[in-house]
């Protein structure tokens, strides 16, 4: 820890500055939460590859860089339609460098639905926010989430009241615009009431390719029987760093489906943690990561079956080209008494070159006896029989390879229920791989 102590000090200094300036006008409980968080950050310190959770992913480039804290709130000229993933009539929110700059008009929302900045929610939904904010993310162990919490000012707040079904998706566009090394800590809190239903898209993108660092945390809380579909598109600049935690808390009979796409960043680390804390809850995590050059992408998932009769399904496929490296660590915890748990996990790794690399680790911790847990991982190049099959139908080798690579990713999206979004994801993947081909 001593080696990087200067880096931690830098962030603590930044925190002091922030507390005295931009962070000054917060409610007392939030100030306390932040103080707590920065303390934990300091205690934990940045991880090294000697930490079990960070064995395959080195954050030394992040630690070494002297990032400025993003403070400005401005709306750049942005072609929202080109960046957005959802149809034009969705409820859109734009965050620039972690700051809320635009959201849907309140009158466009059903009664009681709130989609606005987290800063505003401290006043409008103070008790609710206080009850849930930073209560689930494993800040105790997760140093980056703690760092994010220390800098909470605004961000996104979504509240869907009980029994309300949002028929249009909510899309949150996180844009990075900086042309110099800068860090931002975007924060998102989604609360779905009893039986509420919504589709949310988090879309991370960049205008300029600078060495910024995004340290994002999103929390989604589902009350009984709520239903949330979360899509997460990460297309950060290829020399940016992206560390994120998505924390899900599910009550009984709730349904949560996450679909992630990760194409960007020099270094990306995404922790996905789901707590199934009520009987009959169900979650699915689907994801495609497709990287090249010297990109490094790490997904760490934890599904915590805390109560009986819950199902979880997990399928992440990674495509590694050039000398990129993909890491997957999938932990499934079945707590004592969580009988009739049904957990499935699958991680596929397609290595397009000899120098591409993948590490895949399942981690099952099962403390109940009447459960069904299956996991599988594959790792290897394109299947020769499949390649020949396509070629035998007149498809040239390069096209056949691209098609199979695409299929390897698109397979994960097959179960995406919304056909418009599924097509959109397929197109993103196609374009991404097409760009690889043109290089």
């Amino acid at each position, binding site marked *: 820890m001593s080696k990087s102590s200067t880096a931690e000090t830098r962030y603590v200094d930044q925190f002091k500055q922030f507390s005295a300036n931009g962070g000054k006008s917060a409610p007392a409980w939030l100030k306390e939460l932040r103080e707590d968080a920065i303390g934990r950050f300091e205690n934990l310190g940045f991880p090294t590859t000697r930490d079990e959770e960070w064995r395959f992913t080195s954050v030394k480039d992040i630690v070494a860089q002297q990032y400025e804290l993003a403070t400005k709130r401005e709306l750049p000229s942005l072609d929202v339609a080109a960046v957005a993933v959802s149809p034009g009539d969705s409820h859109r929110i734009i965050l620039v460098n972690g700051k809320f700059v635009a959201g849907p008009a309140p009158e466009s929302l059903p009664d009681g639905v709130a989609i606005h900045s987290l800063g505003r929610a401290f006043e409008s939904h103070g008790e609710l926010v206080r009850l849930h904010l930073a209560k689930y993310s494993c800040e105790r162990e997760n140093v980056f989430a703690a760092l994010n919490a220390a800098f909470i000012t605004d961000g996104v707040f979504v509240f869907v009241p009980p029994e309300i079904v949002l028929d249009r998706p909510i899309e949150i566009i996180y844009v990075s615009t900086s042309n110099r090394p800068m860090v931002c800590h975007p924060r998102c809190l989604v609360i779905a009431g009893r039986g509420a239903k919504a589709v949310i898209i988090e879309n991370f993108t960049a205008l300029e390719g600078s060495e910024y660092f995004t340290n994002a945390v999103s929390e989604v809380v589902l009350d009984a029987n709520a239903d949330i579909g979360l899509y997460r598109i990460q297309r950060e600049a290829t020399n940016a760093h992206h560390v994120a935690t998505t924390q899900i808390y599910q009550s009984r009979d709730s349904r949560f489906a996450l679909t992630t796409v990760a194409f960007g960043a020099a270094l990306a680390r995404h922790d996905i943690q789901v707590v199934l804390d009520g009987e009959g809850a169900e979650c699915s995590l689907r994801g495609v990561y497709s990287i090249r050059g010297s990109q490094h992408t790490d997904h760490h998932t934890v599904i915590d079956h805390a109560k009986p009769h819950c199902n979880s399904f997990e399928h992440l496929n990674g495509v590694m080209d050039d000398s990129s490296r993909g890491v997957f660590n999938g932990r499934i915890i079945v707590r004592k008494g969580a009988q009739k748990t049904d957990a499935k996990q699958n991680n596929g790794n397609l290595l397009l070159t000899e120098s591409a690399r993948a590490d895949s680790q399942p981690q099952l911790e099962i403390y109940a006896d009447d459960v069904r847990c299956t996991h599988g991982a594959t790792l290897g190049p394109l299947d020769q029989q499949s390649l020949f099959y396509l070629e035998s139908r007149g498809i040239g080798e390069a096209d056949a390879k691209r098609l199979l690579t*695409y299929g390897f990713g698109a397979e994960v999206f097959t179960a995406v229920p919304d056909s418009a979004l599924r097509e959109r994801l397929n197109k993103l993947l196609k374009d991404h791989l097409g760009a690889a081909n043109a290089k």
Partner: protein
Amino acid sequence: MENKVPMLEIENLHASVGGNAIIKGINLVVNEGEVHAIMGPNGSGKSTLALVLAGHPAYEVTEGSVRYDGQDLLELAPEERARKGVFLAFQYPVEIRGITNAYFLRFALNAIRAEQGIEELDTIDFLDVLKEKLEIIGWDESMMNRPVNDGFSGGEKKRNEILQMAILEPRLAVLDETDSGLDIDALKTVAAAVNKLRKPDNATIVVTHYQRMLNYIEPDFVHVLADGRIVKSGGKDLALELEEKGYDWLAPEVAAV
């Protein structure tokens, strides 16, 4: 006498896989308009021959030649063979996950059309072609939005091969045990489709173990392959005879297999 136009000329073909000689000197000429049946015991090399014709990279031709429309077939890449009209209905069709049948078929058809200098079909025009062909094999469109062969039953996979054949309209079709795994109704549909696709200037090689298929697709010639060689050739009656007596009576070397 009509003029015979040779399409496929196989001469003294030897092929091996993983260093093992499998095809040990095959001679066969297929003329335009003909249907040839190839029968023979398990492991005799029928699929190997089919895969060599399609250009599978695992199979190495060690001797002999194959001419197709007067051209050296063996020097062409698999996709070039397909674009020139060679089609193999696989004994074991491959599952391609994540790619829908419709997308795959359009991609393949457009690759072949490009070779022939015909403009590519967009999704809408392709749908018209697809509908017409689906009718031939008695399928509806729902199968088209499923990933290629993924989760298909054995019979569905075979039918899908014939659908591909119907769409790509090959000049030389090699059907490797397309009848295996089909119930009698499906067999009739598939056979009717194959017959419907026959033209005076194309040809079909039917690899099968069963006379049943040949009741519907009537062969001009029947060949028996054993241990990598054609040990007997005859007319369609040979198939009946094989059905009755098996392969043992043919030659001592076959009996030894």
